């Protein structure tokens, strides 16, 4: 008991230290932060006794003494280079340890009415949109990391695309960790609001180079109104000791389309919570992911997709390659409400184990209350096809190259779906690099 108390005390300490308010912080936010702090104190960090966290232990976080991030940490040129994709012509917003840094960011002309800015700035300017929409989808009273983010966030970004506006230029938001991020806890909150028929392409990069354990905790809310379309790519390449937790809520109205692809290559311990609330007829959600891990890296994808209305297709494809002692967890729940007839939901998790110390857990789950539905889920855990490997070797290809070819072919299912070419090329290069690192 003493131990838990100490751990709780540590986080209370973090909360206290982090509870400086934003400039011009409105009363509703202050109130909400206070409630979230209470919730966090009550919930604590989840343990493996919690069903949703069964296979991912946060012990390393409990033992860490974290402090809030400074707002002026320096990002080295090497770190800043992580926010660049060769040939990508995009608007760039850079955050370092959770704080917006105008000096590292790069503006570009966006269509009239489109808002892309720091959330702290939007709050300071009294944005009615933020007041109305922020926190509408999240549940800090139930989720520790959402509570932690709500209580302590300093910044994040706001993207608002008004009705009927198409943003052709990709929007790139990079959350970098400074080289001195060790021991730092940084939370961010993002709000993405697409009006009716609005379209945007969003790239989120989470990266860092600094040594030492640090926590990055990001909560994102995405709202897609009638007929809106969002293409989102998340590339996570945090530094080797980083703990990265993301919680993303997607709310979709009629005929909207959200495509989200998450690529995980970095971090020591990564957890993605993705909640899809499909609340409009004939909207469509595509949530895909790829993780290629080595060493003792571990990635936990937890998703919950609710079909509330008729005629909604949702597709989830998560593929993973695990070498050394890497481990991966996939939990996916498709929840079909009684009204959601003609649902077409498909959920697949495939893991490739390259070492006998790697470990994969899969929990693809269906919860269905409507009868006229087509729901399938599948999970496979296995290794490379020995016959394919042999075939390539018999054609004079050395075993390692053959293996890498097969792994790339496996990963390509996801990679080829990345629609922003410079990002896709960067991911391909990073994959080659990762494969070269794998023994």
């Amino acid at each position, binding site marked *: 008991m003493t131990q838990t108390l100490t751990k709780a005390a540590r986080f209370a300490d973090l909360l206290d230290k982090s509870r400086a308010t934003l400039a011009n912080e409105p009363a509703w936010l202050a109130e909400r932060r206070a409630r979230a702090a209470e919730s966090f104190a009550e919930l604590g960090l989840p343990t493996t006794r919690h*069903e949703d966290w069964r*296979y991912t232990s946060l012990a390393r976080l409990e033992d860490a003494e974290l402090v809030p991030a400074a707002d002026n940490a320096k990002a080295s040129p090497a770190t800043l280079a992580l926010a660049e994709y060769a040939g990508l012509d995009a608007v760039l917003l850079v955050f370092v340890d959770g704080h917006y840094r105008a000096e590292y960011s790069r503006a570009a002309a966006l269509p009239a009415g489109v808002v892309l800015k720091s959330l702290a700035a939007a709050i300071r300017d009294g944005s009615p949109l933020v007041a109305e929409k922020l926190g509408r989808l999240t549940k800090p009273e139930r989720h520790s990391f959402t509570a932690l983010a709500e209580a302590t966030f300093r910044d994040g970004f706001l993207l608002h695309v008004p009705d009927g506006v198409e943003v052709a230029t990709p929007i790139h938001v990079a959350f970098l960790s400074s080289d001195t991020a060790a021991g730092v806890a940084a939370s961010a909150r993002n709000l993405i609001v697409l009006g009716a028929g609005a379209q945007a392409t969003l790239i989120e990069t989470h990266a860092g180079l600094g040594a030492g354990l640090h926590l990055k905790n990001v909560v994102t809310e995405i709202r897609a109104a009638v007929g809106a379309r969002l293409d989102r790519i998340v590339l996570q390449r945090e530094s080797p000791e980083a703990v990265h937790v993301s919680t993303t809520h997607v709310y979709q109205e009629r005929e909207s389309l959200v495509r989200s692809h998450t690529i995980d290559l970095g971090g020591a311990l990564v957890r993605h919570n993705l909640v899809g609330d499909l609340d409009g007829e004939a909207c469509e959600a595509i949530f895909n992911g790829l993780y290629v891990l080595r060493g003792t890296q571990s990635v936990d994808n937890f998703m919950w997709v609710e079909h509330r209305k008729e005629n909604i297709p949702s597709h989830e494809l998560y593929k993973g390659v695990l070498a050394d002692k890497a481990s991966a967890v996939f939990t996916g729940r498709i929840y079909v409400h*009684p009204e959601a*007839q003609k649902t077409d939901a498909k959920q697949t998790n495939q*893991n490739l*184990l*390259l*070492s*006998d*110390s*790697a*470990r*994969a*857990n*899969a*929990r*693809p*789950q*269906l*919860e*269905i*209350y*409507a*009868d*006229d*539905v*087509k*729901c*399938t*889920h*599948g*999970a*496979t*855990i*296995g*290794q490379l096809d020995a016959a394919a490997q042999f075939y390539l070797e018999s054609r004079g290809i050395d075993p390692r190259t053959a293996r890498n070819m097969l792994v790339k072919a496996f990963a390509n299912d996801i990679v080829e779906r990345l629609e922003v070419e410079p990002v896709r090329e960067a991911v391909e290069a990073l994959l080659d690099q990762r494969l070269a690192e794998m023994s």
Partner: protein
Amino acid sequence: MTTATKTIEELAEQKYKYGFYTDIEADKAPPGLNEEIIAFISHKKGEPDWLLEWRLKAYRHWLTMEEPKWPKVQYEPVDYQKISYYSAPKKKGDGPQSLDEVDPKLLETYAKLGIPLNEQKILAGVVAVDAVFDSVSVATTFKDKLKEMGVIFCSFSEAVKEHPELVRQYLGSVVPPTDNYFAALNSAVFTDGSFVFVPKGVRCPMELSTYFRINEMNTGQFERTLIVAEEGAYVSYLEGCTAPMRDENQLHAAVVELVALERGTIKYSTVQNWYPGDEEGRGGIFNFVTKRGICKGDDSKISWTQVETGSAITWKYPSVILRGDRSVGEFYSVAVTNNRQQADTGTKMIHIGKDTRSNIVSKGISAGRSNNSYRGLVQVNKGATNARNYTQCDSMLIGNRCGAHTFPYIDVRNDTGRVEHEATTTKIGEDQIFYLQTRGLSEEDAVSMIVNGFCREVLAELPMEFAVEAQKLLGISLEGSVG
């Protein structure tokens, strides 16, 4: 008559057939659970001291445990102090020595249930039956014939008396008394059940069968079944269950342990038809059962087949621990829920030995306002080289007020393992029904044909007599759900 030729209307009229109550004077323990009651049960059964100690240890552990909340089922909390933990039909004298001495009323009951205790009536002598009424085993047929081959098939109480060394060796070796809440409760208060021991190299010549019936009010049934197949032995075992219709819920918390040694094979089939409660969900049996087998020796095999149509709540996960190299675990299940029934069932396959294989086929059918969940675990341990699993879970929904859920857990820690899981959820296809109708079948026949086809892979695993019964049960359970 098979279901395919029955119309749904007929089926709809068919209520729970086995809901009668037999008025027999019962020797019943007062309601309540404490160490005295456990000592009373143990004394009643003339048990040795070690077994009483074992029970008490389980009871003391149970007191420290909490009732599990994770299954996807909802029910009013069970008052464990209101249950009578021992009920036996009153014996005349020292109990029946042969079938002739069994209370004729009991025989009548079993005849109504269609359990032919009377040996001549048994289907050409292919099935040996052990019948358990409330808490005690009433009669076991064909015992002598089995004895000649060295097969022991008797009630658990008898086994404790006559083969204490075997019971002591294997009891709790697969499901330890501390395993889970209901297993601990069972270990403390279990009353009877069946014991099967098939010695080395013997292929049991007939299907062994136990019929369980809960008769008395306010009783629970806590049976314990232990089956051991020695090296190279084979046994196929069937279990069937019914209970009278009552407004209150009754608890059934059984433990089944299977042990297969080298090259041993155990096939365990269940047709579970406990009273499911009425349309509004009043009454019915809470079926909280722990079933687990261990493939202890190399090349051994354990196969579970279950047809679950009854019970208000079913909560069970027949599992196999694949310890021996090249051992095989199988699980075939059909679970049908209607009205307000809730089922949370599935299996666990734990791969420990090398080259182990497991196969899971689960078919869930939900109708009415019921909820039907598959929950299963496939675990491949680090040393389980070349383990292979294939899982298929299909759900069918009839009506839009029911739920079908799938919660598989897959845990692989070895890179040579191959684990596949597939699940689908569909409704009965209108085009399929239409197609059959164009061929002259009525809608009702079409539906039952499709449902039977949907379950065929599983029903094919059942011994013939049971397959026929199971097909009928499928029809009865779905009564009134189509239209």
